[in-house]
């Protein structure tokens, strides 16, 4: 497959009709395949786009490329950079990775279909950022690690000890789950909305402890300090790295519009 297509990054209000290039925000800003980022307008909305090559972003090519970690990382980071550039200027609905239309006219038709819905999502996102909070089951050292003295251990004593080890472990797991729920509920009170992503696989999180909570919160900028301090207070009496804050993010987890 040859030819080009239009890759979509983010929807905004029509500020970008002529303002994106004029604002200087697009200076040196390149899209996922190196082409400059442009703005197209339709239906009372604007959308940041760039041209991509179907050899790289056509459907068949994407199936292959999405499995290539280096390609995936490069593309995701560039997509994120464009979305962040938009979010620095104005309220932004980020689009999913690899949202691609045949050409600018097709992208404009998609935008026009979304008009009323996207406008109300933008209103909802005004003045708010996303923050991420991850909670890990980093516990005090396990109390069942104490070595058993073999000479003094009878079979019955061993079984008894083993049973209480398992009970303690189960109780710890339950406490950890309850702690994660409590963290989520408390932070949700300080946020406009919360969203629980699936906890990340331990092999991917980079932390040698199971992830208990992988949450995102949409927080009013005016309450960002309060939110951060709340996370800090929750983390203060936990082991280091038990609670990790990320952000501010563009509102990736909260800009939900459905295809009409």
């Amino acid at each position, binding site marked *: 497959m040859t030819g080009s*297509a239009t890759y979509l990054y983010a929807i905004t209000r029509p500020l970008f009709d002529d303002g994106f290039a004029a604002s200087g925000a697009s200076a040196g800003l390149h899209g996922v395949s190196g082409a400059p980022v442009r703005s197209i307008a339709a239906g009372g909305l604007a959308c940041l786009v760039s041209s991509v090559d179907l050899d790289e972003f056509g*459907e068949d090519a994407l199936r292959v490329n999405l499995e290539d970690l280096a390609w995936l990382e490069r593309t995701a980071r560039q997509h994120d950079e464009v979305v962040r550039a938009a979010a620095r200027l104005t309220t932004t609905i980020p*689009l999913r990775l690899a*949202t691609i239309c045949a050409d600018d006219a097709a992208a404009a038709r998609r935008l026009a279909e979304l008009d009323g819905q996207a406008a109300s999502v933008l209103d909802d996102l005004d003045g708010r950022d996303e923050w991420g909070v991850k909670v890990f089951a980093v516990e005090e050292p396990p109390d069942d690690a104490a070595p058993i003295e073999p000479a003094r251990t009878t079979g019955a004593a061993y079984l008894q000890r083993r049973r209480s080890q398992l009970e303690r472990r189960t109780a710890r797991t339950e406490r950890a789950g309850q702690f994660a729920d409590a963290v989520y509920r408390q932070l949700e009170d300080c946020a406009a909305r919360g969203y629980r992503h699936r906890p*990340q696989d331990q092999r*991917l999180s980079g932390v040698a402890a199971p992830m208990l909570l992988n949450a995102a919160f949409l927080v009013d900028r005016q309450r960002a300090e309060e939110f951060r301090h709340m996370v800090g207070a929750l983390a203060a009496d936990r082991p280091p790295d038990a609670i*990790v*804050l*990320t952000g501010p993010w563009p509102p990736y987890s909260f800009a939900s*519009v459905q295809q009409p």
Partner: protein
Amino acid sequence: MTALVEPRVAGRPASLVDLLDRLIGAGVVLSGDLTICLAGVDLVTVKLRALIASAGDTVRSE
């Protein structure tokens, strides 16, 4: 009173996995007209296969 404790903030750039949670796992569902079929693929599965394969390589090479 809430103690004024600064939380531990993860450094930049964001971890790839955190980013992919957001760019693939959540967010706007707007199908590009060229990628409608692709949206039917479980992209999260694609992502995890790629990442786990890579993480495995890293572990083995260490």
